[in-house]
């Protein structure tokens, strides 16, 4: 089994926070080619069940705080990539909301797959709004592996 710092497993850390702004929503939508008026048009959005503009549900991905928080110091591989994510959306985010992210390493495991040995570092990030309510939970798998130069 690969060497890593087991003491970080399951220990939640505050990663940082960000504020959802109109400008951030506008830029995020522009990047995605998103034209949905629920996110962009206050008049339209106020006529929906939300009563006003909300942010697209995955806007928190722009603030994914990678590289912060506990590091299990995985002693393997010269490359890493995002293998997958499981996202649970719990509450809408609105302009003006302040979202705080809390992260923990939940698992480190090794697997031998099609491209040889890989080490998976699974992190859970919990995004909480200013009212103390969770808005999203994300489990992401970062894959460490050796690639030929």
């Amino acid at each position, binding site marked *: 089994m690969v060497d890593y710092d087991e003491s970080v497993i399951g220990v939640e850390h505050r990663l*940082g926070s*960000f504020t959802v702004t109109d400008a*951030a929503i506008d*830029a*995020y939508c*522009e*990047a*995605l*080619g*998103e*034209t*949905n*008026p*629920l*996110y962009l048009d206050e008049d*339209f*959005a106020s006529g*929906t*069940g*939300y009563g006003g503009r909300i942010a*697209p*549900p*995955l*806007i928190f*991905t*722009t*603030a*994914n*705080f*990678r*590289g*912060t928080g506990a590091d299990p110091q995985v002693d393997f591989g010269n*490359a890493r*990539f*995002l*293998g*997958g*994510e*499981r*996202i*649970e*959306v719990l509450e809408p985010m609105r302009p003006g909301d302040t979202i705080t992210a809390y992260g923990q390493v939940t698992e480190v495991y090794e697997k031998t797959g099609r491209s040889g040995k890989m080490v998976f570092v699974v992190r859970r990030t919990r995004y909480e709004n200013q009212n103390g309510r969770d808005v999203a939970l994300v489990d992401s798998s970062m894959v460490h592996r050796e*690639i030929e130069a």
Partner: protein
Amino acid sequence: MSLTGTEQRYFGDAELGDEFEESYVARPELVETYLSVSRGNAQLDDEDGRFSDAAGAQALGLERPIVPGVMSLSIITRLVTDWAGPAGRLRTLDANFRRPVLHGDRLRLMALVTDASDESGIGRVTLDVYLENERGERPLQGTAVVELPHRPR
């Protein structure tokens, strides 16, 4: 027909086997715009230039800079939420990355209804979701669960 997000989809409208799709070109300036939101939050890790710099990407063995995986998740989410309409709600998205999405890739954003069930009055629709590039590869594949309202009587 382009999905705009304004039309409400109802649970009874979703049938197993239904397909819908949109397109997206991963133009470098759009990736830059996405990264600019991130830079405002000072977080997305692009230290090695994989998302923005041709030389940095090549040093990592990539043909061109790549689209951040989390941006690809956002792109496929756009399709799902625009299809669902204002009262639809994305509950989960579970996706794997099989290959990188490269700057300039012309993507088909695809979703297919694979299950629909009514759970205590809540219409829950499961979708398979994919990004497919012009080379016929599917860099992202996964599933999404969406709640849709019942059509008012």
